[in-house]
C-alpha cells in the first residue's frame, strides 16, 4: 500500500527498549565476543606479535618458504578444480531432477545418493579411494592387475572432494532450476527456439547466479577441507590446512601454524564476502519453496534425458560403491588380503574405541540443544527486534561458520590455552566450538522462516488482543520450531562428523570418533576405521530420521529440511 512501508520498516510500538531483548542481546554479544572475536584477535596477535614486539617475521618466514607457497597455490588450484567440476556435476544432477520428468521413487534415489556424502564422517571417500585405487586396491591391483600405482596426489584428492561436495551444488541449484517458471522456457520454445537453444539462451543464463553461488560454496568447502588431503594428497601435493596441522602437531610450531592458517584466511574471507554481498543478491529467481509445477512441454529430448540419467546413475553408483565397500571393509579381516568375514573390527571399536564414542555422543548431546537454542534466539533477535549492533551481530555470528575449521581450531587453541580463560582439555571448548561453528545454520533457517512469515500474522494476533509474549508463544514460536529442529539436526550431525577444527582441541580426557578414525588410518588399521565410519553413518541416519519425523509433526509452510541446510 504505502510504497515506503517496506523500506522504512516502521517499528511496532513498544518494540524498542524492551529489557528482555536488551538483556538477551547483551548476553549473546558477550558470548560472540568470547567465542568468535577473542580467538581470532588472539590468532592475529600470535601472527604479528613476537615476545611483545610487533613483528611480521613469522609471516615472512612462511611466505618465503617455497614449500608453503606451493601449498598456498595448490590449495587454490584444488579449490578451483573442485568448484568447477563439482558445480558441473551438481548442475547435471539438479537439471535431471528438475527437468527430467522423473518418477517420484527415482527422485528419492537421487536425494538419498547425495545425502550420503553430506552426512558422512570425514575420510570416508578417502578410505574407499585407498581401498579401490591404492597399491593393493580392488580396482587397480585386483581388477586391472596394475602394480606400483600411487593413489596419492591431486587427481584422487580432487575426485574424492568432488564426490563429497557436489551435493552442495545440487542442493543449491535444484530449487533454482525448479523455481524458473517453466512458462518462460515454453515461451522461448513457442517462439521457435530448439530445446538446446532454449537451454542455452534461457535456462542457463537464469541459473548463472546459482552456478556462481554453487562454485563459491564448493571452492570454500574444498579450501577448508582438511581430512581428504591429509589422507590422499601425499607429500607431493601439500595444501594449507594440512600444512598448518603438521606444523603444529609435527613440529610443535604454533606460531608457524597460526601464520599458515592466517594465509588461508585471506582467500576464505574473500569467498565469503563475495558470496554474501555479491552473488546472493543477483538471483533472478525468487525461490518460494513451492515447485513451479509440471513443465508444459518436454524440455529435454528423450535421448538427452537418457544420457543425463545414465550420467547421474553412474555418479550415484560410484557413491553407492564407495559405501558398500566401506561396509564390506568393516566386516572382513583385511580388505585386499584376507576377505574372511569377521566382527573383530566392531569388537575393537566397542572396547578400545568406546571412550571416543561416548565422548563424542556426550559432546554432541550438549552441543545440540545449546546450538539449536542459540540459533533460534539469535535468528529471532536479528530479524524481529531493534537494538544496537543488530546487523553486525548477524555478521559476526556467521564468521566461525564461514572460516575454515583449521583457522577456528588454531584460534581456539591459542586463545583458550592460557589464562585468563583456560579451557584446553575440557569438553566445554569442543562444545563451544561446535555451537558457534554450526549453530549459524539454525540462525539462517530461523531468519529464512521468519522472513516468509507475513508480518500480518503477528499483527492479527495483536489485533485480537494478544500481547507480545502471547503472540511469540502461540504464533511465532510454533512457526519457527522447524528451524529449531533443523538447527538441532545440523549441529548434531556436524558434531559427529567434524574434525578440522576440533582435532586441535581434543585431549586425553576428551576425544572424538573422527580423531580415532584418523589415528586408525595413520596406523593402517583400516578395518576399525571403516567400522567407526559405518557406526557414525548409522547414528547420523537415526538422528536424521528422528528430526525428519519431528519436522513432519511440527510442519510449517516453507520449513527447511535438515538435508537442504547441510548444503551451506
Amino acid at each position: 500500500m504505502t510504497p515506503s512501508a517496506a523500506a522504512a520498516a516502521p517499528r511496532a510500538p513498544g518494540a524498542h527498549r524492551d529489557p528482555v531483548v536488551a538483556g538477551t542481546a547483551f548476553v549473546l554479544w558477550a558470548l560472540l565476543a568470547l567465542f568468535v572475536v577473542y580467538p581470532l584477535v588472539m590468532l592475529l596477535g600470535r601472527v604479528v606479535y613476537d615476545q611483545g614486539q610487533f613483528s611480521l617475521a613469522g609471516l615472512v618466514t612462511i611466505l618465503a618458504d617455497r614449500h608453503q607457497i606451493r601449498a598456498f597455490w595448490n590449495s587454490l588450484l584444488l579449490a578451483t578444480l573442485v568448484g568447477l567440476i563439482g558445480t558441473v556435476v551438481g548442475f547435471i544432477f539438479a537439471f535431471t531432477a528438475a527437468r527430467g520428468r522423473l518418477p517420484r521413487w527415482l527422485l528419492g534415489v537421487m536425494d538419498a545418493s547425495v545425502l550420503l556424502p553430506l552426512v558422512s564422517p570425514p575420510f570416508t571417500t578417502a578410505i574407499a579411494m585407498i581401498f579401490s585405487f591404492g597399491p593393493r586396491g580392488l580396482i587397480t591391483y585386483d581388477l586391472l592387475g596394475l602394480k606400483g600405482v600411487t593413489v596419492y596426489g591431486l587427481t584422487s584428492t580432487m575426485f574424492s572432494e568432488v564426490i563429497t561436495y557436489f551435493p552442495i551444488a545440487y542442493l543449491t541449484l535444484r530449487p533454482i532450476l525448479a523455481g524458473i517458471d517453466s512458462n518462460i522456457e515454453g515461451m522461448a520454445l513457442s517462439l521457435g527456439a530448439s530445446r538446446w537453444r532454449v537451454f542455452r539462451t534461457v535456462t542457463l543464463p537464469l541459473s548463472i547466479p546459482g552456478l556462481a553461488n554453487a562454485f563459491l560454496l564448493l571452492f570454500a568447502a574444498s579450501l577448508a577441507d582438511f581430512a581428504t588431503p591429509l589422507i590422499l594428497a601425499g607429500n607431493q601435493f601439500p595444501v594449507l590446512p594440512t600444512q598448518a596441522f603438521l606444523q603444529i602437531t609435527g613440529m610443535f610450531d604454533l606460531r608457524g601454524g597460526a601464520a599458515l592458517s592466517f594465509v588461508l584466511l585471506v582467500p576464505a574471507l574473500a569467498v565469503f564476502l563475495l558470496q554474501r554481498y555479491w552473488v546472493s543478491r543477483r538471483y533472478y529467481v525468487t525461490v518460494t519453496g513451492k515447485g513451479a509445477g509440471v513443465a508444459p512441454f518436454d524440455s529435454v529430448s528423450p535421448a538427452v534425458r537418457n544420457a543425463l540419467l545414465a550420467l547421474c546413475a553412474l555418479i550415484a553408483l560410484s557413491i553407492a560403491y564407495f559405501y558398500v565397500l566401506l561396509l564390506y571393509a568393516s566386516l572382513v579381516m583385511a580388505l585386499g588380503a584376507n576377505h574372511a568375514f569377521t566382527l573383530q573390527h566392531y569388537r575393537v571399536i566397542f572396547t578400545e574405541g568406546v571412550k571416543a564414542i561416548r565422548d563424542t555422543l556426550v559432546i554432541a548431546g550438549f552441543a545440540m540443544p545449546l546450538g539449536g537454542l542459540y540459533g533460534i534466539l539469535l535468528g529471532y533477535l536479528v530479524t524481529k527486534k531493534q537494538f544496537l549492533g543488530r546487523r553486525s551481530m548477524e555478521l559476526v555470528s556467521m564468521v566461525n561458520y564461514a572460516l575454515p575449521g583449521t583457522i577456528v581450531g588454531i584460534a581456539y587453541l591459542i586463545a583458550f590455552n592460557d589464562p585468563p580463560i583456560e579451557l584446553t582439555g575440557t569438553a566445554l571448548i569442543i562444545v563451544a566450538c561446535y555451537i558457534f561453528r554450526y549453530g549459524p545454520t539454525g540462525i539462517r533457517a530461523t531468519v529464512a522462516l521468519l522472513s516468509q512469515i507475513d508480518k500480518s500474522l503477528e499483527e492479527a494476533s495483536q489485533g485480537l488482543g494478544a500481547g507480545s509474549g502471547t503472540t511469540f508463544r502461540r504464533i511465532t514460536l510454533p512457526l519457527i520450531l522447524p528451524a529449531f529442529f533443523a538447527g538441532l539436526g545440523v549441529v548434531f550431525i556436524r558434531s559427529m562428523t567434524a574434525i578440522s577444527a576440533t582435532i586441535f582441541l581434543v585431549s586425553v580426557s576428551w576425544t572424538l570418533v573422527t580423531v580415532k578414525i584418523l589415528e586408525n588410518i595413520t596406523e593402517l588399521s583400516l578395518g576399525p576405521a571403516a567400522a567407526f565410519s559405518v557406526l557414525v553413518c548409522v547414528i547420523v541416519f537415526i538422528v536424521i530420521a528422528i528430526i525428519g519425523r519431528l519436522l513432519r509433526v511440527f510442519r510449517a509452510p516453507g520449513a527447511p529440511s535438515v538435508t537442504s541446510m547441510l548444503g551451506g
Partner: protein
Amino acid sequence: MGNETIGVRVAGVSKRYTHRVKGEIYAAREVVLDVRPGEFLTLLGPSGCGKTTTLRIVAGFEMPDAGRVYFGGEDVTAKPANQRNIGFVFQNYALFPHLSIFENVAYGLRVRGADDREIGRAVGDVLALVGLAGYEQQFSAQLSGGEQQRVALARAIVIRPRVLLFDEPLSNLDAKLRIQMRQEIRALQRRLAITTLYVTHDQEEAMAVSDRIAVMNQGSVVQEGGAQDLYHRPASDFVAKFIGRVNSIPGQVASAGAAPAVAALGTTFAVPALPPGLAGGARVQLMVRPEAVEVVAADTAGALPATVVSSTFLGEKAEIELTCQGIALQAIRYNTGRGEVFAEGAKVGVRLPEAALTVLPPAEGSAG
C-alpha cells in the same frame, strides 16, 4: 471492553516516511474522519493514497506522527492494537497456518480468558453465521480463498469488537466471489451493527457496501459522502474521474448570477450550480457522465450536431464514441430492444440534460 456501539474519530492524523528516493513523504496528511456509531465508512483511493496507513493507525499497528484517534470519547492514540478491542481483516487473511479453523477463530477468545464451553459455543455460532459450520478441524491450507476470507471474518467478529476494520479484504478473490462476499460482509455488518472502516481501491465495491465513502488522494481525504453524492456531485476533477467515467468538456462561465450558465461546444448550457468564487468568463470544465449523454436523431430540436466515431455493442448497452465541435464525447445507450444501430460516421444529435451537468474548476496541470 464495552460492547456499546461507538463512533471512531480520526483527528488530524499524519504519518511521514523516509523514502529512499523521494526523501520525506507523507503517507497520511492531516486526515480527519468521523465514523458514526454503527456506520459503514469506506476509504477509497488509488494505491499509495494513504488509506491503508490511515486504517493501520486506527487499528494501532502504526503510530501517527501527529493527530489523535478516538474510539467513542476515549483517546486511544497511545494504546497498542491489542488493547483497542478491534476486529481486523487482512488482505491476505493472515490465518495462522499451524492452527485449525476452530483454534484460529477461538484465538481472540482464548486471549481474553473465556472458558472452553463459552468458546465452543461462540465459535460454533460465528462459523455457522459465515456458513462454515463443520469446518472446525480443517486447516487454512485446505480451504479455498472465499472460505479463508470467511474464517478471517469470523475470527474478527467473534470477539465482538468495538470497531471492525477491513484492509482490501476482497482483492485476492475472483470477480464473481468478490460480488458475493461483499454482499455477505454488508449484510453481516448491518446485522451486527458494528462500526466499520473499510479500505478498497475498487469504486464499485465501495459503492456497494458503504453508508458513506471518503475518497483519499495523496495522503488526504478529498471528498466524503454517500455514493450518490460522490457520483453526481464530485467536488473535484480527481473524484469525478476516479469514480465512474466522465466526459470533461472545456468551457467558460457565461453567467454567474442567479441563473448560472456555461458556454461550451459552441452553445450555452444552463447549469444547476457553479463552484464558489468564479466570475463570468472564468475557465471551467463541464462534467457529464456517459450514460447522461443523450444520442438522438440529427434533426431533433435543440440537439447539437455530432458524428459517431465508433460504436461497441456490449449486450445490455452500447458504448458510443462521438465528436462534437471537435471535442470527443463518450455516450452509453441502454439496449431498448428496438435495435437502433449507429454506424461509424453517422451524423447524430447530442443533448446534455441540465440536471446531469457538474461544473468544476479547470484541472490542475495535467494530473488526475
